């Protein structure tokens, strides 16, 4: 269990982590999602006692990490930045780690086998690929067989096979009843692995809920309508009791109905249709809307920054502005993959 209460970190005038409070529970994979620079790595470093919080607190199993006598047997972490000296062999790197926490040396061979590095155990990590370096970091995290695991952007730089391996590893660790806390800046990645989701933006908590709930709240479905006669179309559909929203490129988004109903309404009035397609808003889009809002709230002076954001309901009616990066291509994330993996 990891508990954060009001955790805050300021670097000069930038607030990297802003009053974060949440709990990471055992038995599930908790995804820690936020755009680059949101404060994920800083939060994880503070949990590890590497960086000192400006205020607030981070506890692992009810104590400060710095108080743990054999921390590697309690918490294993893969940090974002490399933390291996290139000139010391993989085996010796794990060996000194093991010795420092009274972990038997045979465990070194075990974890090397577990991550598939047995062949290169006597090689120097300076010659390792990104993926091999990542595997060595994971071996170090698993060394003490800890009940709490943290992975900061573990899939970065991995090939598809490695990504698949890490996803399964995290699920397996959670299934064993461990606390698994994994960060990513990609919603799609989280959708595939996380059971619980914590979203932050600009250091602030934006959402903290089960993945399933996040999906059901955010998988808005609608029908995209494209027409050369938007005025008439709106009148016809509104008269037919359809709720409308503006889509990108002058399209109309019809909510709370299906394509068949719209087709019939339009045909009855003879309006020209160029497109009529059912859409599923992607989680990626939901995530971008969520984080775009922090940007907006912070940009406007006088608005109560962060007020009501964490509680959530207001971000379900996002502002009409498109998220940064231009129009979002919807339906990129296929939620059904979650089970198939």
């Amino acid at each position, binding site marked *: 269990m990891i508990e954060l209460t009001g955790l805050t970190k300021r670097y000069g005038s930038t607030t990297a982590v802003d009053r974060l409070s949440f709990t990471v529970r055992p038995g599930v994979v908790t995804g820690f999602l936020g755009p680059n620079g949101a404060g994920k790595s800083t939060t994880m*470093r503070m949990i*590890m*006692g*590497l*960086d*000192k919080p400006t205020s607030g607190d981070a506890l692992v199993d009810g104590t400060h*990490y*710095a*108080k*743990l*006598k054999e*921390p*590697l047997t309690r*918490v294993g*972490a893969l*940090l974002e*930045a*490399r*933390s*291996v*000296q*290139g*000139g*010391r*062999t993989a085996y*010796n*790197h794990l*060996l*000194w*780690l093991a*010795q*420092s*926490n*009274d972990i038997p040396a045979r465990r070194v061979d075990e974890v090397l086998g577990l991550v598939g590095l047995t062949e290169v155990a006597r090689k120097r990590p300076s010659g390792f690929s990104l993926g091999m370096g990542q595997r060595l970091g994971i071996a*170090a995290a698993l060394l003490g067989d800890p009940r709490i695991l943290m992975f900061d952007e573990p899939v970065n730089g991995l090939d598809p096979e490695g990504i698949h391996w890490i996803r399964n590893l995290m699920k397996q660790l959670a299934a064993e009843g461990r606390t698994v806390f994994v960060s990513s800046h990609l919603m799609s990645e989280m959708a595939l692995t996380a059971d619980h989701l914590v979203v932050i933006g600009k250091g602030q908590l934006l959402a903290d809920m089960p993945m399933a709930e996040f999906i059901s709240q955010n998988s808005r479905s609608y029908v995209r309508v494209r027409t050369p006669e938007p005025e008439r179309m709106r009148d016809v559909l509104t008269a037919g009791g359809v709720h409308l929203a503006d889509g990108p490129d002058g399209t109309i988004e019809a909510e709370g109905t299906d394509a068949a109903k719209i087709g019939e309404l339009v045909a009855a009035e003879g309006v020209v249709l160029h497109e009529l397609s059912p859409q599923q808003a992607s989680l990626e889009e939901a995530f971008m809307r969520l984080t775009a809002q922090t940007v907006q709230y912070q940009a406007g002076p006088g608005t109560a920054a962060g007020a009501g954001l964490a509680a959530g309901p207001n971000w379900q009616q996002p502002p009409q502005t498109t998220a940064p990066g231009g129009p979002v291509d919807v339906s990129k994330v296929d939620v059904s993959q979650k089970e198939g993996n």
Partner: protein
Amino acid sequence: MAQLTRVLSSEWTKIKTVRSTVWTLALTFLTTVVIGVLFCLLVRYLIPAGERGVFDPTFTSFGGISMGQLAVICFGVLVVTSEYSSGMIRASLSAVPQRGLLMGAKTLVGVGAALAVGLVTAFVSFFLGQLVLGSELNTSIGEPGVLRAVIGAGVYLALMAALSMGVAWLLRSPMLSFGILIPLFFLVSGILGMIPRARDVAQFLPDQAGSTIMAVGDMGEFGGIDRAYGPWGGLLIMVLWVAAALAAGYATLKSRDA
């Protein structure tokens, strides 16, 4: 106590499993011994008997230490800064979050290794030096003060390593640490030692103070410098410098983010 033992063994594994520590310590030995022998040859054959002043054969055999200490400085600096330049400090502090314990163990292991190499270096330098000086000039380990001076030379090298480690914990960057330590001991200290006024101050620099422990006779007689302290006083001054450097390093490690 159990924790200290295992952190010590972990630090020992760290230190012996990278090439740079082996190289720098080997270089400390070779540089000191080789230059010491050459220096003794120079003294024996090139300097006429009348110009030898009050000759200290023990101190003469340590003529290579001023160069050899540069290698031991590299050792001390690299042992600490390699943790920072590689990012491994994060792994180290994850494994041993008690920062004082980590620093203490690393310093003990580093200084211990430097002391072992330093003592071997000192004894080899001494005996080879005496051999080269020949029976007319040399002394023996049994003469008063000689054993103290030889062991002192080994201790001096270990203290130099400790000082460098303290500075490295403080500065974290290898370039910054070298940039301060190497010119200080290779140039500044020597130059100040030659300027009459500055000499009064320069004699309190760690290397100048510490090196009095390697001399059997009064340093004043050998180098023509009036020191305000004897060999033990000099050693104490150097120890104070080391303590200050380690304290500054500890304060930094304790307060700054890793």
